[in-house]
């Protein structure tokens, strides 16, 4: 192996604030060879972003590098003066961030922002600099680069903004690119485009890349070596093929086991109990010991050393010490199946029957606020859910899936359509009658931090629904009901008197579920309930939702952009594109025999946590979601469709049945 490009040795970073400083990064060591893609994986709060910021020396005010060495091409970065550091940033190493919308200056054209970096680090000026900017924008495959260079960030989509960020980072051919969750804020189809781009750029330019992510699928598709971080430390380092073939550390194994796509549909996901320990205390032993189900007696007391687990594969775990080797080789015992009890499922009729649901938002302009257009967020959606079943609603952000959920609850007033709940039209009810019927349908939201009022105690929040809907007259009964609900979602009864800020994201989501359950709904709209959570916590919540469905025969409308979660949770799937459903069918039909080109592209874009999976040869979508204010004529999908025909431009395709359950709206009939 040649001399490493970047060598990090024993790096420690403290974050001040609170009583004791947090050791966000604690004794981290790794090396990146020239031209190598090295991935740093971990759940939120494990210190991976702090590592990146420490290397760039861009820590926030409260952060401080407490010790260690960071060498870039043999030069110790931590000893350099700030002025020298500024020359290095963007020149020999560059960074791209998670949120492309926040990383660009909104009042400068994107071309100007790329040119800024070019001028800072090279001698190019004037026309030469402009030419270089254009070359860079073309290198990141910005469509119509010359025109885009003169545009402002708000005129670009999220994917294009991230391309601009990459162009800025590439301006001076850096030897090292640090990418901090570069695709987390993007949709799967755009994520696939950006990952392809990063991989190609890295290969063609021989640039090394430090990729920081929480998504094992991304790692498998892009990286060559991987390090798993837990609570400020690296616990395992391995080449990607070896890691995905056999993760060594119990934590890594748990991460894999909690991926919904790895579990069978009928099985419970392996969730990691508890949460990441606070980093402001001293650790005597292994940091994962208290959550580890393979913990040995010495785990709590002695710090594990590095052990070989294979070629280039090292792990910080006592299990790989000389005599215990091989303990971890036996597979996890299969969990008992938790599929819903079939006796509760009656297929005779549907609980929810939505037909022709439209939610249009008028666009008003001028002095008299005349309506000049309609944003057709939801444009004629029909779906049905049988009691005890789950319908997964999938689509990219902006396709209107959340609006469907809120529209059928009348949190947003729909423009037209029918929502039959148990034989009664929800949309025709007057306000007073609606209030009484609201107990049938409840909702769980995406953001566990925004879904609980910070000023209301948990007990009072749970009681609110009971009071508002007049369920249970006396206070004693309500209190015992709240205790029951908390027990059902796995929380002790004493949380009643506490306030939301004392709980973690996963616990809050449990409370939100308990709140929805309080009024005994028949249908729960789950609006991306796990997309703000880490995989291990997501597994806990998905298990809980599955168990509740089995016990109570609940129906779910499960809204998500995550195909793996949908595949695990849903019985039927509806795929949405620009306000309309383009394909509908059972899970098996849609996942394994997608008929609509959009569904195929969506499935192909999902990064698979398996490096042997070859992403090439599958469909890649170009471009972004068009605006629902002005949808393309004919089939909405035709501008991005690889199989578009002339008739697609002219008329919206009709319903096309492939089986009694599978329907696609597409002209294609092969």
């Amino acid at each position, binding site marked *: 192996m040649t001399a490493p490009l970047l060598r990090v040795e024993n790096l420690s970073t403290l974050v*001040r*604030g*609170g*009583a004791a400083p947090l050791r966000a990064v604690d004794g981290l060591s790794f090396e990146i060879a020239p031209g190598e893609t090295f991935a740093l994986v971990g759940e939120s709060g494990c210190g991976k972003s702090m590592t990146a910021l420490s290397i760039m020396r861009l820590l926030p005010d*409260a952060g401080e590098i407490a010790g260690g060495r960071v060498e870039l091409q043999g030069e110790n970065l931590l000893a350099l003066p700030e002025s020298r550091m500024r020359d290095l940033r963007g020149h020999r190493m560059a960074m791209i961030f998670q949120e492309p919308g926040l990383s660009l200056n909104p009042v400068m054209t994107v071309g100007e922002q790329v040119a800024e970096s070019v001028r800072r680090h090279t001698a190019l000026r004037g026309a030469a600099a402009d030419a270089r900017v254009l070359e860079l924008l073309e290198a990141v495959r910005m469509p119509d680069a010359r025109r885009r260079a003169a545009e402002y960030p708000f005129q670009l989509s999220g994917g294009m903004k991230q391309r601009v960020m990459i162009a800025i980072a590439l301006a001076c051919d850096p030897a090292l690119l640090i990418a901090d969750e570069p695709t987390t804020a993007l949709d799967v189809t755009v994520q696939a485009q950006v990952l392809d781009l990063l991989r190609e750029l890295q290969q063609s330019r021989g640039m090394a890349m430090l990729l920081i992510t929480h998504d094992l699928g991304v790692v498998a598709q892009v990286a060559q070596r991987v390090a798993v971080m837990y609570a400020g430390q690296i616990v395992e380092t391995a080449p990607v093929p070896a890691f995905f073939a056999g993760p060594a550390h119990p934590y890594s194994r748990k991460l894999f086991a909690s991926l919904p796509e790895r579990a069978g549909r009928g099985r419970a996901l392996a969730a990691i109990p508890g949460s990441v320990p606070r980093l402001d205390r001293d650790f005597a032993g292994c940091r994962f010991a208290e959550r580890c189900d393979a913990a040995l007696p010495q785990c709590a007391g002695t710090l594990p050393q590095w052990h070989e687990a294979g070629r280039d594969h090292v792990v910080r775990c006592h299990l790989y010490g000389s005599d215990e080797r091989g303990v971890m080789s036996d597979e996890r015992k299969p969990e008992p199946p938790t599929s819903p009890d079939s006796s509760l499922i009656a297929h005779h009729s549907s609980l929810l029957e939505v037909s022709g649901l439209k939610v249009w938002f008028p666009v008003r302009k001028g002095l008299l606020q005349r309506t000049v257009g309609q944003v057709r967020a939801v444009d004629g959606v029909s779906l049905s859910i049988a009691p005890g079943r789950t319908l997964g609603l999938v689509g990219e952000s902006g396709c209107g899936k959340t609006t469907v959920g*809120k529209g059928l*609850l009348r*949190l947003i007033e729909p423009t037209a359509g029918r929502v039959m709940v148990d034989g009664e039209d929800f949309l025709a009810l007057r306000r007073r009658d*609606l*209030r*009484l019927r*609201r*107990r049938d*349908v*409840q*909702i769980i*939201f*995406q*953001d566990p931090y*925004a*879904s*609980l*009022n*910070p*000023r*209301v105690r948990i007990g009072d*929040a749970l009681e*609110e*629904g009971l009071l*508002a*809907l007049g369920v249970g007259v006396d206070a004693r009964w309500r209190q015992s009901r709240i205790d029951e609900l908390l027990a059902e979602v796995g929380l002790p009864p004493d949380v009643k008197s506490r*306030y939301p*800020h004392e709980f973690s994201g996963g616990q809050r989501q449990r409370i*939100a579920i308990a*709140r*929805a359950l309080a*009024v005994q709904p028949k249908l729960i709209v789950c609006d991306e309930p796990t997309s703000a959570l880490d995989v291990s916590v997501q597994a806990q919540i998905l298990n809980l939702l599955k168990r509740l469905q089995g016990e109570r025969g609940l129906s779910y409308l499960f809204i998500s952009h995550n195909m793996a979660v949908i595949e695990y949770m849903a019985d039927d799937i509806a795929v949405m594109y620009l306000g309309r459903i383009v394909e509908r069918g059972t899970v098996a039909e849609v996942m394994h025999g997608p008929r609509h080109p959009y569904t195929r592209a969506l499935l192909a874009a999902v990064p698979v946590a398996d490096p042997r999976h070859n992403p090439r040869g599958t469909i890649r979508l170009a471009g972004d979601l068009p605006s629902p204010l002005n949808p393309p004529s004919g089939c909405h999908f035709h501008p991005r469709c690889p199989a578009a025909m002339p008739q697609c431009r002219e008329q919206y395709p009709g319903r096309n049945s492939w089986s009694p359950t599978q329907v696609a709206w597409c002209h294609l009939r092969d």
Partner: protein
Amino acid sequence: MPVRIELLWSDLLVWLLVAGLVGLALYTRKRPHLSAPWIRVGASASGMAAATVLSFFVLVGLLDSVHYRSALPSPGGKPAWSTELRSLLDRVLDPLRAGREKTYSAPLATHLFAKETVVLPDGREERVFPRLRHGGAHLADPEAGRWPDVATKAFRGLALALLLWFAAAIGVAAMTARSLGTGIEAAWRGIWGGRTPLQWRAVLCALAAVLVIAGPVAALAPYYHVLGTDKVGQDVLYQALKSVRTGLIIGTLATLVTLPFALVLGVMAGYFRGWVDDLVQYLYTTLSSIPGVLLIAAAVLMMQVYVENHPELFPSTEIRADVRLLALCVILGITSWTGLCRLLRGEVLKLRELEYVQAAQAFGVSNWRIMMRHLTPNVMHIVMIALVMDFSGLVLAEAVLSYIGVGVDPSMISFGTMINGARLEMAREPMVWWSLAAAFVFMLALVLAANLFADAVRDAFDPRLAIAGGRA
């Protein structure tokens, strides 16, 4: 001596406010999420020092808000009550109030400021500076005896103040020791090391500063006019202390008048949006386009005319002045709610999209309940910040309005009337500076303390700072 307590309208409101604050404090004590920001205020040194100074002003204001009439000696059995309405503060400051001179005298003077023609015992007339009736009247030889006498009296006052301070400090240490469960010595060191949860060190320092000034002044006040006298010979110190109540009432009541408008309209506009929002926006846009001074002048003059036309409703000058003060509070409040309303509307527009509000809507919780339970508590930090920030602005506004003659009743002592009375004498040679200086220093101390306290409150209640905080 029998007395009859009489409650002016403003007194009633002041005591209601005090009762409300005490109730609120008791309510807050039991709720950790409400008391947490106040504990943060307690940990702020500048905030606690400001609160200490402020509490002296509040004490003066409260003493001045208990009014009574004393009984007059009457020949018959029927009790007769004095026509003069006095307050507890007047009672405490009796020597100052009663010690009227003829006209201007300088601070600590023994003679009048202007020469007067006096008739000597032998019939000759001479222009001299006459002796004051009260200031330094106990001195046999004012020329030689004045400064030594002032020094001894001041020193005695200072010694007493230090004694008092020491007693207070010991008391605080004992209290801290009891609450922390440590020895009194450890508590003492803890206080001076700034390690107590409440910043007692700042409180004690501020207390020392106040006492060092107040002690000598209190010792001198019965014998001298410490801050001189004004045109009609009234003690300026007395006037300044009486002005405190006026300032406080304007500051608090006017702020409270703004509150219902701002809160109700702001939350409604943000929550309902649509035509309610349009209406509220038009209302406050229009209101804030009218020149405030004009509106206030018109309202105050209308009030004045009404009072003069209905003398039977307002039997005494004190009551008339009081009603006018209240009217000023109301009109100041009505003209200044727009800023807070706009802030609250913006915040509620943001909050109403949050998921807990939508979850409540999904339960069919009524709109009013959502506003009361989910929105209002979550904008209270903004209200709290705005209230303490507005207070000082309104105290200053009173001074300006009284100065241009549309403020409080001329018979009511306030900073504004003091400045108004003193402004013409600035041109005099030698200058009569003490009235203006006294008003200036008192107002500065009051407003500065209020502003520093407001700053501490703002820092403690601002959720963004609270998250990043802890490293102040």
